């Protein structure tokens, strides 16, 4: 039984780490969920693996399993559940606000440009006008921010 539990924790952790490193929010959410599962089983196993012994006090029993990890796992499950629900909602919010489900949202450079686009147009300052980057980028931003990014990898 020990090797099976150990293998299970290992596989779940490895899959969880792999998925959290993905670039889309949905695999990241799945990865965090798997990591939470792995850690729950791990916590459970830290009370040692016993078969057929109760955790709560019974009259004729002499051997008990450790009840504390079970309480810890219960707490951890509740917390992980709440956090995952929050992350899913946040991912949906990010999907609708950022235009795609990449963890970095729109490409960074374009976000920076769109920031500059909020500045009012400059007038009557010829000294600065020459090296002013906003005029050239305005058109670019208008054409890209509302659409999905070109050349994004299909999954």
């Amino acid at each position: 039984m020990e090797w099976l539990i150990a293998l299970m924790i290992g596989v779940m952790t490895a899959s969880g780490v792999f998925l959290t490193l993905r670039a889309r929010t949905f695999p990241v959410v799945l990865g965090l969920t798997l990591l939470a599962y792995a850690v729950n089983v791990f916590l459970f196993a830290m009370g040692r693996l016993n078969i057929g012994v109760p955790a709560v006090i019974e009259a004729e029993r002499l051997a008990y399993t450790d009840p504390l990890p079970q309480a810890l796992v219960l707490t951890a499950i509740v917390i992980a559940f709440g956090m995952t629900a929050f992350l899913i909602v946040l991912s949906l919010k990010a999907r609708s606000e950022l235009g795609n489900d990449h963890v970095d949202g729109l490409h960074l450079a374009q976000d920076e440009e769109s920031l500059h686009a909020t500045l009012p147009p400059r007038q009557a300052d010829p000294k600065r006008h020459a090296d002013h980057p906003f005029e050239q980028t305005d058109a670019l931003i208008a054409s890209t921010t509302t659409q999905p990014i070109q050349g994004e990898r299909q999954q």
Partner: protein
Amino acid sequence: MMTATPFLPVLIPLIGGVLVLLAHRGGLNLQRLMSLLLVLALLLVSVDAMQTAIQMPPQVYALGNWIAPFGIVLVLDQLSALMVLITALLALGALWYAVKRKVDAQGAHFHVLFQIQLFGLNGAFLTGDVFNLFVFFEVLLLASYGLLLHGSGRLRTRAGLHYVAINLIGSTLFLFAVGALYGVLGTLNIADMANKIAHLDPQDQGVVAAAGLLLLLVFGIKAALFPLYLWLPQAYANTTAPVAALFAIMTKVGLYAIIRVHGTLFGDQAGDLAGLHLPWILWLGLITMLMAAFGTLAARGLREQVAYLVLASVATLLVGIGLNSIDALSATLYYLIHSTLIAGGFFLLADLIAKGRGAYDDRFVSGPATPKAMLLGATFLFAAIAMSGLPPLSGFFGKVLILSAALDHPAFSWIIAVVLLSGLMMIMALARSGSLLFYNTLPENGQDAPAAADASKEHDFKGAYLAVASLLSAALVLVALAHPLGQFTQSVAQQVFDAPTYLQQVLHTPAVAKEAIR
């Protein structure tokens, strides 16, 4: 003897938060009043707790009258009392600013989240149990997710997503570390763990060391230790100003946890494992400091720059903890008081400047002069001097104390070189941003300057400035009271290093007798 004091700073924001939620129908003004009164009450209780902590040995409160190590205990010693007091001071400034600038009207339940955030922070500072620390971390994180995303904006959502994801990974690692420690030591009470580590079987040392370093990783995420700091600048730069100001204490939670958990578990009694975490903290702290200094130079907006300054101050504190002596810890705590309050004030100031610049926001491009540029510029100069550690303000004294404590350390040349170099870079960065924001201004083009002035009239500028000024005035108070405060931090540091008394108090405080309860 058992007193009621340790649980009050935890209980007030919890019950208060629920009451503020119930007062939702009473309107925002009622919620504001309640929230401010609650923070004031918290401040009074913190001062009381501080007096108790100074006069008496660590106070232990056993929740449900289950004595340690079987039940969960709250421990009030000077270090936790200090952290709770700083939190209350910072929260008062941030909340006042939020109310005056109507930040709390941007979304629902700002005050509820604010109180729950304080509940989580105070709980994390007061608990004496590792798993309970995890639970309070989750409470403060969940509230911080809500606060971080308060209001809206694309950049805020993106930074929030990163922040939430990395902290969820941190929570999972925390559980792995706690589980491994429990599996070997069979206890979760910090004091009891320290006892068990002292008599550890040599073959179990590897597991405990691995779990200890895993815990360091978790606290490193909170404290923004290199290479785990990358979430911080964007998250702090893109959230609302009062939240960013309150978050100045969030990185210190990680530092506190390192001092409390690692300092106790891997203190002198730990044999082969003693000081396990120290080289990591010291060297990674130095690297963090350099990266933060580069960050201040590379920042494109004032808020991002202040976020990097927070990172630099955290790095200084990490180095101070890594030196591992009473003098160094005392200096670190002095710098901690300074950096938390000044960073909070600086975030609020950055917001005032950014709002005054209208559409130019806080970006480092020349724009029209802000309204009240003289006042804001002078305040910026004051904050910049305090933050970058120039005399005569408290940042200078904090750094001098830490550096003089570093002279005994074998690696002192590296420490001094990195601290001074990064200080120089921060001064350059702040000088550049100050001259861009206040000197190198464009002539008014007649369009957005009145709009900006209107915007600042709409909200209460004077009231908001009061919050900034009172937080920044900490720099003067810390200098004026440097001697008594130095003595105080010295006594805090002595108590932290006096682990036997802590263990004795936590493990041998008896349960309250039934007669006393009746």
